[in-house]
Structures are given as C-alpha cells and as structure tokens.
C-alpha cells in the first residue's frame, strides 16, 4: 500500500489558490474573475479535505460542505449582480464598472 | 491465462464494458425502431416496414446514413467546444449506464459480479453527478454553434435541466430514507419480501408520490416530449443541435436515448425492485417464464414467416425465428434460467418504462416554456419536498413514540 504525503495535497491547493489569485488580479471579465474566486474556494476545500484526512476528523469535511453551499449561494447572488452590471454598463469589463455606484 | 488470474478485476471489467457497450448500442438502435413502431401504431400507421422484415434493419440503415453523410462544421463556430459537446453528451450518458446492476451480485465470474460494471457505495450520488454533467453537452452545443436558435435551445435546456434536476433528486431522497443506503444492490435487496405474502415490497407503494414526481422530472431531464422545449422544432428549428449533422448529430441522438434508458433503469431500481421478480419465490414455475416467453415469440415469428413474408424478408425472419426458439430452449435449462432471472425481470420493467416514454410522446402535447418553468418550480418542487418531509416524519414516528 503506497501512501501520499498530505503536503502534496497542500502544495497543490496552494498552487491552485495562487493561480486563482492571479486570475482575480489580472482578468478583466467579471465572470472570469468570479470563476477565479471559485477556483480559490476549491483550493481551500482541497486543503480542508487533506487535513481532515490527515487527522482522521470529519470537521474538515463538514467545513467543505458548508463552503460548497455558501459558494453556491454566492454564485447565485453574484451572477445576478453581474447581470445587472452588464445591463447597466453594456460591458463585462470590471474596469468599465468603476463608478463605485450605479 | 495467468494474466487473467493476476488481474481479475481489470480483465472482467474490460470484458463487461465491451459487452455492455455492444448491448447498449444495439439497444439504442432498436429503441429508435421501437419508438417509431409504437408511435406509428398509436397513429394507426405501419411505421418502418420495408428495410428488412417489419423494418428490423431500419436502425442499421440509419446508422450507415449518419456515418456516410457529409460532416459540416459552421465556420463561425468555436471548433473545440463544437466538437467537445456531442462527445461529452454521449460519454456521460454511457458512463451512467455503467453503474446500473442488471442482475443480482451473487452471479460471479472470477469472483467478480457479472451484471454490474461498477458497484459503488455511493452509486446513486455518482449517477446523479454524472447526469448533472449531462447539461454541458446541450448547453455547449447550443453556444458553440454560434447561431441564434441553438443558443436559445441551449439556454432553455440548461435552465430546464438544472431546474428539474432539483426535483428529480428530491423525489428520490424519500426512497433513500427508507433504504438507508446509496448502493444500488442494497437498495434493491432492501425491496425483497412481500406484503400479505404476494404484493412485492417495492418502494413504489409507500413512495407513489415520489415516483410520480420522479417520472415527471425524469422526462423533463431527458428533454423528452412533453418537455422537449430545447428542440421544439416549431419554435427553434431543431433546438441546440440545429447546426449538427451526420455523426455528431447521431451522438446527441444516442445520448438522448441512452439517458432514457438510464432513467428508466433508475426508476426500476428505486421504485420497482430492480431485478427482483414480482412473484413470491415459492412460485417456482416463474423460473421458466423467460424461456416460455421467447418460445412463444418464436412461434409467432414462425407463423408470420410462413404466412405473410415474401422474398428476402422471409429468410431474414426465419433467422429471427431460429434465434428466438433457440434462445427459449436454452433458457429452459434450469441453471441458465436461474441466472437470467434477474436480467429478465429487469429488462422487462425497463422496457415497460421505455414504452411509457414513447406512449407519453405519442399522447401528450408540448408545454409552453413559462408553463414548463412554473410547473417545475411551483408544483413539482413543493410536492416532492412535501413528500420528503412526510416520509421523514413517518420514519421517525416510531422512534419518537418509543422515546415518548
């Protein structure tokens, strides 16, 4: 039975998280930025699961569950907002939506 | 040979997959023939008749036609996604089928169950996971063709499927509460036994509401009439696959029918006791039902061959007759009979559901889109929720009574 060190998972999640961060910082398309955020959330979930496995506890999994649920809610609201922005700005570019108000 | 002994799982799984693929593909082909025939007879037509006896070779002809048609790709389309979409659809549809147990796990070769490719503990969840991915095929197809009607079709289908998926899942949860497991085999074996000694303990009886919700949601999930808005030809030409031609179109076609089969299987497993026989075990004569049925079919074919067949068709039909009689004869051998019991009952039930599908198609008109959404969210979802709540309540009632 071969085993995988948990640190592998952690590094992977760190990399994914960092990539998501880069996406948030560099993308202009609101939806893409949103997806980058989701990516970061996933990375965090991976870390959670890995730790849960490492310590043989369920809490990590429960957290992941909650994270997923919250992410879903967030996606719902966020996409609604995106739709509004786009209807108001005729553009998905975040830099077009920089008035701090509608 | 020793390779086989070293890696039984690998080998058996590969063989099973190959067989299953063959069976399902043929099944799909002849499902189309079946549908056309049934609808035709509902509309008092003959349906396919001339390609082969009773149009039995029609599916073959269609397949050849799809293969040899020109495959054209819209220039403005997004190539990658355009090609990805149909593959996604078909692949997912077939993956789902891999989870279905057609017979009891007790039947084993090299210590591996024969009648199921993958027996997961979270089989049901996994199945839902796969089917939920099915949306992408449609949506991406609609988007990537970069054309108006497909886009609308894709939008509709993604919205519709996501909406109905909710009620689909919810309607099933009731069964899960009763069964207490996600494993298909356990769910099925949990339905063994009888009320009053002869009424089978199928979940459909306590979960009748759940079943109705399920079947409705399932039809919608598979974009079948009366919920086939994504491909409503009167509104959107042909919906999301308007721009698809030849084999890519065929893939969507097959994916749709594969989904039908999957959903029917699921209904069978969850509500109708899967491969369990409807009759008590004490009725031993039921062992011979498959053989008897085949032989009867053979006899009818024989009559038909002799009386009404002419020319080449007579020869073809003779072959069919031979197959039926032979198969029937083999099925009468006790060992064989006992082995094919499960698959026989399972297939029978699935075929019934498929017939039901076709039947609804032949009968019901198409919904309007807003009606569709209202129905899904304002009727189906609440009902399935209520069903779930009631089930849970009934479940905890005894323990609650016990604990005061």
């Amino acid at each position, binding site marked *: 039975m071969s085993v995988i060190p948990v640190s592998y998972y952690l590094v992977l999640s760190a990399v994914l998280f960092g990539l998501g961060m880069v996406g948030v910082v560099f993308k202009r398309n609101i939806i*893409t930025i949103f997806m980058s955020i989701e990516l970061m959330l996933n990375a965090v979930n991976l870390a959670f699961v890995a730790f849960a496995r490492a310590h043989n506890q369920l809490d990590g999994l429960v957290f992941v569950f909650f994270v997923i649920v919250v992410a879903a809610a967030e996606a719902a609201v966020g996409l609604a907002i995106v739709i509004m922005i786009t209807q108001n700005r005729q553009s998905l570019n975040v830099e077009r939506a920089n008035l701090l108000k509608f | 040979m020793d390779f086989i002994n070293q890696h039984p799982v690998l080998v058996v799984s590969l063989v099973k997959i190959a067989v299953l693929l063959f069976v399902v593909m043929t099944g799909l082909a002849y499902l189309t023939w079946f549908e056309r025939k049934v609808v035709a007879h509902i509309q008092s037509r003959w349906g396919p008749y001339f390609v082969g006896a009773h149009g039995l070779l029609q599916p073959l002809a269609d397949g050849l036609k799809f293969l040899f048609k020109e495959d054209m790709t819209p220039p403005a389309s997004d190539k990658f996604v355009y090609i990805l979409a149909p593959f996604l659809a078909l692949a997912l549809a077939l993956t789902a089928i891999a989870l279905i147990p057609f017979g009891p796990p007790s039947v084993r070769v090299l210590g591996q169950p024969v009648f199921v490719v993958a027996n997961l503990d979270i089989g049901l969840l996994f199945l839902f996971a796969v089917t939920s991915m099915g949306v992408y095929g449609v949506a991406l197809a609609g988007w990537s063709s970069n054309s108006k009607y497909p886009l609308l079709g894709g939008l509709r289908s993604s919205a519709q499927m996501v909406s109905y998926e909710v009620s689909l899942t919810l309607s099933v949860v009731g069964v899960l509460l009763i069964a207490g497991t996600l494993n298909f085999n356990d769910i099925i074996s949990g339905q063994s036994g009888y009320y009053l000694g002869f009424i089978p303990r199928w979940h459909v009886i306590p979960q009748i509401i759940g079943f109705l919700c399920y079947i409705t949601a399932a039809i919608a999930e598979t974009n079948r009439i009366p919920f086939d808005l994504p491909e409503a030809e009167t509104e959107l030409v042909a919906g999301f696959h308007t721009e698809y031609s030849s084999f890519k179109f065929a893939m969507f076609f097959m994916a749709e029918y594969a989904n039908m089969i999957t959903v029917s299987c699921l209904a069978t497993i969850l509500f109708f006791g899967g491969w369990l026989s409807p009759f008590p075990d004490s009725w031993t004569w039921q062992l011979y039902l498959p053989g008897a049925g085949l032989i009867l079919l053979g006899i009818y074919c024989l009559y038909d061959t002799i009386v009404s067949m002419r020319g080449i068709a007579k020869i073809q039909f003779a072959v069919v007759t031979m197959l039926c009689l032979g198969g029937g004869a083999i099925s009468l051998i006790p060992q064989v009979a006992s082995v094919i019991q499960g698959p026989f009952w399972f297939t029978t039930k699935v075929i019934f559901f498929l017939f039901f599908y076709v039947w609804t198609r032949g009968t019901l008109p198409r919904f309007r889109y807003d009606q569709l959404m209202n129905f899904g969210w304002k009727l189906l979802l609440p009902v399935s929720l209520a069903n779930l709540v009631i089930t849970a309540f009934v479940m905890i009632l005894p323990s609650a009574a016990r604990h005061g």
Partner: protein
Amino acid sequence: MVPFFLFFVCALLAVAGAIVLIVAWEPIHSALSLVLVMMALAVLYLLLGAEFIAAVQIIVYAGAVMVLFVFVIMLLNAGSEERTNWSKLAKVAGLPLAFFFLLAVAHFLSRSAVGANIANGAGAVSNAGVSTRALSVALFQQYLFPFEATSILILIALLGALILARKDE
C-alpha cells in the same frame, strides 16, 4: 502505485485547467477549464476517501454552479474579453505578490510538521460508506445550527438573486 499515478495525473489536470482558466480569452473556455479542475479535485477527494464530498463537488459545483456560469455567459452572450491596458497596480504588485505568496506557502509547507503521510484512496473506499454516514451524523447533530444557518443563508441568497435579476417593469 496507482494512487500516486492518479494523484499526479489529477494534479496536473487541475493545474493545467487553472492556467487555462487564466489565460483563456473566451469566458466559456475558462468555465470549461474550471469544470475540468473540479473534476480533477473530485477524483482527488475520492483518493482521500471523501466520496460524499466528491459527489457533492460534482453535483453542486460542476453540475449546478458552473452550469449557472455557463448559462449566464450564454445569456449575456459574453464575447471574448476586451484587451484594455492592465491595472498598473496589478502589474507592479499583483503578479509578483501572488508568486511570492506561493513561494511563502511552499516554504511554510516544506518546513512545517504537516508532512505526515496519510492512507491513500484505495484503502479509503472500503470505509467510505461509514465515513458518509458519520459525516451526515456530524452534520445533523454536532453542526446542526450552522447547517440551519446555511439553509437560511441560501434562502436569502435565493430572494436576493430573484430581486436583483428581475426585470423591473
């Protein structure tokens, strides 16, 4: 051997997907690559023996959330991203900092005590059912209140989305 192979394949897929997500100009491509990432992660969860989470990952994330994204992309008919100049701040601060962050985390992991090995997925499949059951028990007993809270949160999100996206006549 198999778990290692699986792990690296999935990891590679995930990273590749993430990179594509960033570099792709078409939102839909980004979405697809994200779905790919999620799939890979789901497999990793399976490796870690968290089957339930894997399933939920696929059903909710890939099956619902991402579909929602795709839906919105299609609805807004989002073309390829327009190439405006980068935010100066992002250029000077964002990229280097992000990579620095990566380095920092890697360094942290390399020297932290969390190098502990864990059982691979093959061993986990057997007790998966148990773990799912245990998870549900924990969810509905120990974490009941957060659970309810989340449900309320979802309700609110639902209403919010409705009100926001409604076409006000």
